[in-house]
C-alpha cells in the first residue's frame, strides 16, 4: 500500500520557521485529521504536500516516489489532490466546466473529462447543478464542487483545507458523511484540516495537532481530547483547562 508521507518537513524563511521537522503519514482509506490554532502552519503543510510551496528541509514522498520538487500539477497527476480554503473555483464558469478543465489538466480527453465530471457531480450530490455558474452557488454547494474537482481522476489522496468553515452543525454533518464516503467507497486517503475540532474528533483517526510549526501530539481522538499539551496550545494555559473548548466545538 502506497502512503503519502511528510518526512521531517521544514519550512523556514527570513528567520521565521513556519514548519519544523514535521512528520505525517496518510494511508489509503484513512481519514487523518490535522488541527491546530490559527497560524500553526496547517495550510503551509498542505502547500508543501501538494507542491505549492517547496520545503526548505525534509521531503514529501508517495510510496517510494519523492514528490518534493515536483510541480503542483505533476503531484496532482501522481494522485495527490487538494481543495483550497474558500473553494477557489472558477467562479465565472459553469460547475461542470470547473470539473472538466481539471480532467483536461490531468491529460484526459474532453469526452472522458465530461463523462467523469457528470458522474462525479452526481456522486457528490450536486448533479442537478451542473450547468449553474459556480459563483452563484451557496457556499455549501460550492464546497461540494471543490471536493468534486479534487476527486477528478480518482486521486489516491485528497487534502481538504477547511471544508467545513462557516457551516452549521447540520451542514457539517452532511459534509462528514461525504468525507466518510470518500475514504470508504473510493478508498481515498483523506487529510482533513479543520477548525471545527468536533468534526475532526468525530471523523478522524489518527489526529495530528500542529502548534507553532511543530506536531505536538498525534493520536486517537480520545488521546487528543485528553491531552494537556493540546489544551494548552488551544487555551494558552493549562490552568484554564476547565474551559470546555474542545467539548463545546463538538
Amino acid at each position, binding site marked *: 500500500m502506497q502512503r503519502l508521507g511528510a518526512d521531517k518537513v521544514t519550512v523556514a524563511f527570513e528567520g521565521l520557521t513556519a514548519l519544523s521537522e514535521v512528520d505525517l503519514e496518510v494511508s489509503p482509506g484513512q481519514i487523518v485529521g490535522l488541527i491546530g490554532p490559527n497560524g500553526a502552519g496547517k495550510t503551509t503543510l498542505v*502547500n508543501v504536500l501538494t507542491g*505549492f510551496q517547496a520545503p526548505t528541509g525534509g521531503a514529501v514522498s508517495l510510496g517510494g516516489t519523492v514528490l518534493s520538487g515536483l510541480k*503542483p*500539477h505533476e503531484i*496532482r*497527476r501522481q494522485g495527490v489532490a487538494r481543495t*483550497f480554503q474558500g473553494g*477557489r473555483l*472558477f*467562479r*465565472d*464558469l459553469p460547475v461542470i*466546466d470547473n470539473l*472538466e*478543465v*481539471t480532467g*483536461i*489538466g*490531468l*491529460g484526459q480527453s*474532453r469526452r472522458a473529462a465530461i463523462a467523469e465530471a457528470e458522474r462525479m457531480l452526481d456522486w457528490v450530490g450536486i448533479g442537478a447543478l451542473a450547468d449553474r455558474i459556480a459563483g452563484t452557488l451557496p457556499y455549501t454547494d460550492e464546497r461540494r464542487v471543490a471536493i468534486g474537482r479534487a476527486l477528478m481522476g480518482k486521486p489516491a489522496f485528497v487534502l481538504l483545507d477547511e471544508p467545513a468553515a462557516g457551516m452549521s452543525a447540520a451542514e457539517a454533518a452532511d459534509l462528514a458523511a461525504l468525507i466518510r464516503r470518500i475514504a470508504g467507497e473510493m478508498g481515498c486517503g483523506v487529510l482533513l484540516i479543520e477548525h471545527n475540532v468536533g468534526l475532526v474528533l468525530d471523523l478522524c483517526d489518527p489526529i495530528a495537532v500542529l502548534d507553532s510549526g511543530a506536531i505536538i501530539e498525534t493520536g486517537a481522538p480520545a488521546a487528543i481530547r485528553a491531552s494537556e499539551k493540546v489544551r494548552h496550545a488551544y487555551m494558552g494555559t493549562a490552568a484554564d483547562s476547565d474551559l470546555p473548548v474542545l467539548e463545546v466545538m463538538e
Partner: protein
Amino acid sequence: MSAILQILFDALSLGSLYALGALGIALIFGVMRLVNFAHGDVIAFSIFALLWPSVDVVARVGAGNLPWFLLIPFVLAVGAGLSVLAELTVFRRFRNASPATMMIASFALGFVIRYFLLMLYSSRPKSISLLPALSQPVEILGARIPLLQVITILATVAILFGLTSFLRRTRFGLEMRAAAENFTMARMLGVRANRVIMGAFALSGALAAAIGLILGSQTGTADIQMGANVMLMAFIATVIGGLGSLPGAVIAGFLLGAASVVMQVTLPIDARPFRDAFVYGAVIAILIVRPQGLLSGRGTKERV
C-alpha cells in the same frame, strides 16, 4: 426613418471596430494581465501587408490584389503571426514581471513595429484600393447604407459568434476561459500555459488584422498611424467593460461607437469638433459610477 437607420448603421459599424479592438485587448489581458499597447501597431502592420512583397517608399499594392478568399486569410494570418512572434520574442520574457513592466514593454514593441513600417514605407499614407466593390451603397428600408458597413457589422457578429462558440465548445476554449479567470489556478490544475497564451495572442492578432482589413477598405489608405485611434478607444472600452471581461469589452465597444455617432449628430454644430471630449467625459462619468467597469473582470491575482 432613413436618417435614424443611417445613424444606427454608423453606430453599429463604428462600434464593431471598437468591439473587435477591445476583444483583442481583453483576450490577452485575461490570460496575462498585460494591456497590450502594441495592438494598434499590429493593426497597422496588417494593413501594410497588403503592399507586400513591395517594401519601399513607392510601394504598390501587391498582396492586396489577391482574390478576397485568399486575401482575408492571408491578412488574418499576418496579424496572428506577428502577435505570436511578439509573444515569443518579447512578452514570454516578461511572464512574471509586474503589469506595469509588461505594459511599458508593449509600448516599446509598438514603437518598434511603427518605426519598422516608417523605415520601409515612410510616413506618407499609401493609397490602396481594397475590395472596391464594397463601396457600393445598398438600400435598406429606404436608407442608402454603404455595403461595407453592412459587411463590417455582419462580419463582426460572425466573429463574435465564432469566438463565443470556440471558447464554449472546444477544449482549448475551456482552457482559455479557465486561464483567463484565474491563470495561476488553471496552471496548477495542469492547463498548458504556453499554449493558452500563444492561442490568445494568435486570436488577438487575427482580430487586429480584421480591423486592419475593415479600416483599409473604409479609407482606401494604409497609414502607420491607423491603428492608434482604434487602439485608444478599444482600450477605453476594455476598461469600461471591466478589464478581463470579454462580453464587457464587446458591449462597451458598441456603447462607445454608439456614443460617438449619436453625439456627432445631436451635439450643437459648434460643439461637434469637440465630440471626443464629450465621449471621454461620458467615459469618466461611467468610471466614477462603476470604477470596476460594467461587468467586472478579475484584475488582481489571487494568493495561493
